[in-house]
């Protein structure tokens, strides 16, 4: 009996985590706990003068209750909707592209940081660099688009962004 109970419990747990409702519930529980923790040292105040912790406390409760409801749905539904597996993970490259831009913008200027973002983000699209010809074409496109952005944002729209690295 106990031997069968462990795999069954594991099966329920795996199904729970893989379902959109179950994983959603876990995320909401975590967010609720985070809000409660982050607001715990703020004063609640009184009814005459409510403090800054009142609404966070209410929101943490609302999120926790929503999580509870989603958990029950995930556990009680015979075939809960599973999280869709990604078709390709290349989209993750958008994140380093953004972070590279953030790190470079102040020191390297708009032209270079734009070019780097484009080259990194270009790899986010599946099959973007499938051939050398495609890669070259994309490189040329990245250079032209960076120049266009410098022209549009820095020159035409007058946004106060340095175009080139300091001292160039």
């Amino acid at each position, binding site marked *: 009996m106990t031997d069968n109970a462990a795999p069954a419990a594991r099966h329920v747990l795996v199904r729970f985590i893989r379902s959109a409702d179950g994983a959603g519930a876990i995320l909401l529980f975590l967010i609720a706990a985070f809000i409660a923790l982050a607001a715990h040292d703020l004063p609640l105040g009184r009814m005459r003068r409510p*403090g800054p912790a009142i609404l966070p406390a209410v929101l943490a409760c609302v999120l926790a209750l929503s999580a509870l409801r989603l958990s029950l749905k995930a556990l009680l539904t015979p075939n809960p909707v599973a999280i869709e597996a990604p078709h390709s993970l290349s989209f993750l490259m958008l994140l380093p592209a953004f972070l590279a*831009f*953030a790190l470079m913008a102040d020191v390297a200027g708009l032209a270079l940081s734009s070019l780097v973002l484009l080259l990194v983000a270009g790899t986010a699209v599946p099959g973007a660099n499938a051939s050398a010809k495609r890669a070259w074409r994309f490189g040329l496109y990245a250079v032209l688009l960076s120049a266009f952005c410098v022209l549009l944002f820095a020159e035409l729209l007058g946004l106060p962004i340095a175009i080139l690295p300091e001292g160039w």
Partner: protein
Amino acid sequence: MDGFLNNLATGFGVALSPENLGFCFVGVLMGTVIGVLPGIGPVATIALLLPVTFSLDPASALIMLAGIYYGAQYGGSAAAILLKIPGEAGSVVTALDGHPLALQGRAGEALAIAAIGSFIAGTIGTLLIAVAAPPLAKVAQAFGPAEYASLILFGLVLAVSMASGSRTRAVAMAALGVALGLAGTDVFSGAQRFTFGIPELADGFGFAPLAMGLFGLAEMAYALDRKRRGERVGGDVRRASLTRRALGKAMPAILRGTGVGAILGVLPGGGAILSSLASYALEKRVSRTPEAFGHGAMEGVAGPESANNAGAQTSFIPMMTLGVPTNAVMALMIGAMMIQGIQPGPLVLDTRPELFWGMVASMWIGNLLLLVINLPLIGIWVRLLDVKPRYLFPAVALFMAIGAYAIENSWFDVVLTAFFGVLGYVLLKLRFELSTLVLGFVLGPMLEENFRRALIIAKGDMATFVERPLSLSFIVLGIAVLALPVIFRMMRQRAPIQS
């Protein structure tokens, strides 16, 4: 009447200045160009193009944003009709009959009906704003903190109850949005809330990074992780063509759709999807051939498209007069106004009449421009659908990064955009709706400020919310919205037992 005409004259004086006319034209054009791209709806388009308006003066920026909105909506409809890839929830309804029409080689006709229907609905919607906004703003000036708190709560309740998908998820997203909106320095006590010692967060999360991250970056990542292709249409779609007879036949549907959309657009949580769905249901009900719906009924395009546009137009009424956004697009518009240093609300009409009326006039001009641009240029929009993702997505990412950086020349805003992109992607993967989150983000701080102010004025007496008639009516309406579906469900369950 004189006041009405004077107001419109002020508005047209502002909107017809060569500079603003140019911004309206560029807005409509850019909105259509971006909106027609598969999977990018009006919210994402506005979020992406928001940075372009930063350096403009407030009136020009709002005129351009309104143009972007209409352009994006039409572009989204074109993608729904031609490719069956709706950029937003509202266009899903358009795709139901629009795409079958396109497959029958009648894409040009469907696109022309969509443009003309949108123009007629936009014209009537603009007139409604001009008539309804001033008296509503006068009423709103009598609102105290208690009325505002109850109204905002009612707005959130409506937004949650009308959200597509599960209500539990919508409640959670609204709560998360409110929580994100609370970050920063508390206006009453000066306490730092959710700032984690980061000085850049003292003013809270920026609206532009949040909007671009959730609707731009996250949607883009989500689109890249799924392999989704539309079915290309046959026939000639190089230009929109329409006979007078076909237009005459569609006219009743256009007018009915306008009526439905105009009413639903004003309601918090209403807007495009509800207007389109209600209009589609109405057209199917009044049609002599309801079986044709879903297989290429022109009324199925004319009604929802007009409703969509009329709703888009009248949703400006509560945003401009009460400062309360009714949908995600209006939340973006409020964000844009705040970036420009304008606090939306009833006072805008008195303190900045040129801004309000200029925008109202530009809405009509924007709709006219849509008609002028779209009918002859439809062939170009169709070709835009062929832009390869490997060129499109990096370019969109770059525009977002520059836009985020340009707000305050700060790398931190770029990192925030990336953070909200990750959060948005995770939420989308887990089937949460992001529109409710953005509404919560904008409405949350307003709700808290007015709620706490009302309690301070009433010396802690919660009865203040039910003792004031207007506040009480919003609370009763909110309870009714929550209770009615439950009551209907109970009645339905009882009915078979009684029979």
